[in-house]
């Protein structure tokens, strides 16, 4: 049918024309066009850093475009701040929730448009009533008096949607809304989206996940490195079609990997119990083991104890009970220093917080764990010549760019930062390499590099423990897959027998053991 034909009979409410946005020399959006129609879901597809969020921040008045214009209901508008966007009926649910954690649900919803009695005194009674009313109208049930820090991520997302509806939003921007949800919550969200469009609301759905776009969207705008690529009618295409437009070439979803027989068990965890920051049990009598020459993938939704498990293994968090062993050494409650010296390396989930000292240069980061050892130091005095030589070696071997060991880690791109970490950790020649969310926020090229590094480790007869929220990654890279739910392993399957539906069910706590 084609885009033009399908859209002919629809009411156009938003037109973004030739939007360009520059940050210094960096072009985040380059002449992008977007039309949004009443009662329809318009997806915005692109890789990380393609410029999706920038475009939406412009529509929402957080950034001002370098050039281009926006029309709402056919009239040209200047959206210079969120207030104006809100007045035009635009609401936005950000990827990182914009919620004030110590505030209640109600306080968050009314913030900025508070019902007041005399003298700006808050009228909480009316606020509660209003919140209840809209939450019932759209079937978005929440506890209005709960504090944000006490409710689940899915609930927090509902609060975000309610915030927009409370402000009378007609157009709702959802920025990567499923990134943090369980498969079941995703189904619920898609239902919510359908309810909203039925009520005449329009949705802009930002995503880099093809499946949910196919499931939920009517139209899809694809951008790549800031450039407008195409707008397609979703029911007329499929995942492969979208994917090739997104990355600009045919992509294979399969990682190149030889068959390999795993060796002896080298690492094991028995009945491990770990508590989280709030002193609640996060890892609950967990058992796993990993063999030499094997990649064990840990699948699960964010917040099911992965972080606590990792921190317990690497000595960053106290173990309440249970046992962690590597090479028959008990490393339970060892310090990070001791763990590193038992030949465990760790690519941390937050590379900027844990993995790098951003204000150290590349060379200093490459010796973060070995700075005191010969040849980097003797009798407590550092030898910067040797440190530089070593860093240069790693930079060459792992193709870190720029090839200057004196560059601050802060100035590197995300992919190159990750390369520095992987170079450092793999060069420690670990018996066990733990990789947590190793490809988060990286572009396709860097992702391939990371996966290859992990598989190389395995092919060298080392054990690899991969933790990821991306089920595709787990399924493509791992040899065996363990699923974690509420701090317990709820199932272990061979990767070659794994099915998405079954894993998804287990990740949500359902399914067979």
């Amino acid at each position: 049918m084609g885009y033009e034909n399908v859209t002919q009979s629809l009411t156009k409410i938003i037109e973004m024309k030739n939007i360009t946005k520059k940050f210094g020399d960096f072009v985040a959006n380059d002449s992008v066009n977007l039309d949004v129609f009443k009662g329809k879901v318009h997806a915005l597809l692109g890789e990380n850093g393609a410029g999706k969020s920038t475009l939406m921040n412009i529509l929402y008045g957080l950034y001002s475009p370098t050039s281009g214009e926006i029309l709402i209901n056919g009239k040209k508008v200047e959206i210079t701040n969120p207030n104006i966007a809100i007045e035009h009926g635009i609401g936005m649910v950000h990827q990182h929730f914009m919620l004030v954690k110590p505030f209640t649900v109600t306080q968050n919803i009314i913030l900025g448009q508070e019902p007041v009695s005399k003298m700006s005194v808050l009228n909480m009674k009316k606020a509660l009533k209003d919140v209840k009313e809209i939450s019932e109208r759209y079937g978005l049930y929440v506890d209005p008096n709960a504090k944000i820090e006490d409710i689940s991520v899915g609930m927090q997302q509902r609060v975000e949607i309610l915030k927009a509806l409370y402000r009378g939003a007609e157009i709702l921007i959802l920025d990567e809304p499923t990134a943090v949800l369980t498969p079941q919550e995703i189904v619920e969200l898609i239902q919510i989206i359908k309810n909203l469009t039925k009520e005449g609301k329009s949705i802009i759905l930002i995503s880099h996940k093809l499946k949910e776009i196919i499931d939920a969207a009517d139209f899809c705008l694809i951008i790549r490195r800031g450039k407008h690529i195409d707008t397609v009618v979703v029911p007329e295409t499929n995942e492969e079609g979208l994917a090739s437009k997104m990355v600009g070439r045919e992509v294979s979803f399969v990682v190149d990997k030889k068959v390999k027989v795993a060796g002896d068990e080298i690492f094991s965890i028995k009945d491990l119990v770990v508590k989280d920051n709030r002193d609640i049990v996060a890892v609950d009598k967990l058992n796993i083991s990993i063999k030499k020459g094997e990649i064990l993938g840990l699948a699960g939704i964010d917040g099911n104890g992965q972080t606590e498990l990792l921190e317990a293994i690497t000595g960053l968090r106290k173990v309440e009970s249970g046992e962690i062993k590597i090479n028959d050494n008990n490393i339970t409650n060892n310090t990070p220093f001791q763990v590193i010296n038992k030949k465990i390396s760790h690519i941390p989930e937050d590379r900027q917080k844990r993995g790098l000292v951003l204000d150290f240069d590349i060379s200093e980061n490459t010796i973060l764990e070995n700075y005191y050892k010969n040849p980097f130091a003797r009798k407590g005095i550092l030898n910067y010549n040797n440190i530089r030589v070593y860093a240069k070696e790693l930079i060459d071997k792992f193709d870190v760019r720029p090839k200057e060991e004196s560059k601050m880690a802060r100035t590197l791109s995300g992919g190159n930062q990750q390369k520095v970490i992987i170079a450092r950790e793999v060069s420690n020649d670990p018996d066990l390499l733990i990789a947590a969310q190793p490809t988060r926020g990286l572009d396709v090229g860097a992702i391939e590099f990371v996966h290859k590094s992990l598989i190389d480790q395995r092919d060298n007869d080392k054990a690899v423990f991969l933790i990821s929220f991306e089920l595709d990654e787990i399924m493509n890279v791992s040899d065996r897959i363990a699923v974690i739910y509420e701090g317990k392993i709820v199932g272990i399957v061979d990767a070659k027998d794994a099915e998405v539906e079954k894993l998804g069910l287990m990740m949500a706590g359902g399914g067979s053991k």
Partner: protein
Amino acid sequence: MKLKMKELRRALYIFATEKTVGFTLISIFLGLVVGALFLAVAGFNPFRAYWIMLQGIFAKPSYISYTIIRATPLILTGLSIAFAFKTGLFNIGAEGQFIIGSVAATAAGYFLHLPLLIHIPVVIISAVLAAGIWGGLAGFFKAKFGVHEVISTIMLNWVALYFQNFLIYTKGFQKPGGETSYSIQPTANMMILKTWKQSEAGREWLLQHPFWKDLLRTPMNWGFVIAILMAVLVWFILNKTALGFRLRAVGFNKFAAEYGGINVNKNMIISMFIAGALAGLAGALQVVGVSHKVTLIAAMEGYGFDGIAVALIANSNAMGCILAGLLFGALKYGGAKIQPFMQAPSEVVSIVIGSIVFFISIPKLIKLILTRKSKKGGTK
């Protein structure tokens, strides 16, 4: 000509924004301008005031000596704060650590009777240890109990102050009839040529050599040399040793340091111990070199707070602390002279220092002004 102006502005911009030294110098210049404005508005000739200050610093050997004596403790407290900054800690406690250092030095200098060459090192080491422990205490509270070092060091400052006053009222330490302690033994005195200066031969020689006479009039002592050695030592520790690597890693990113196997808590305590020791050394040198005793203090004397400004102006650079300390000492010593000579308020010095720190806090503003100018220059 126009082109040259443009180049000049461009050079100035690069100087101010890409080189931190340049940015600091521009901040110092602007601080002096603000001081001049205050003087001018109040009806004083700022050029004359600054000229008097300059003369007051350089005109006589004794003036230079006094400037250096003033600067010495500030260099050390500055180093103390800069060192803690480098490891991510804010040591507001240099004030109290200075007090503990001077009290310990006085006690060791008065109660112990030791030979000349041993006494001074013993006095200094006891002061350094005492103040180090005092500083380390704040590090310990932070490491063990998560008490923010800013608040614990503020509290410890006051505890130190009242502790010194308590000792001054204690029998055996209090010099009868006065609100001061006994003076330290002559063997603990670090003044240069102290006995010779007062000897017959010395006095005669000095009478014929006015330069040396004027110079030795001051309580000149080895403190400045020690302060410089300390700056070198601090620089070396931070940049060239494994300990320094650990401390800086903790300072920049304690999560990454912890991940890398570095014991964050232990290093925080070490860092605060060293910071305390440096401030305590300042107190000790003040006692052995200048005051020889401690007196009742009604309010904070400001060595620690001035040290914060020194560290900030020095951008926490160890060598920078020497220069910033000298600048600060010179402004304080020279600035005091505009009061008797032209009745201009010498407190303009605090205004100058406050303004310098203020400009240092807003590099963005200075960048903005300079870019605007160079842009304007470009379009003409």
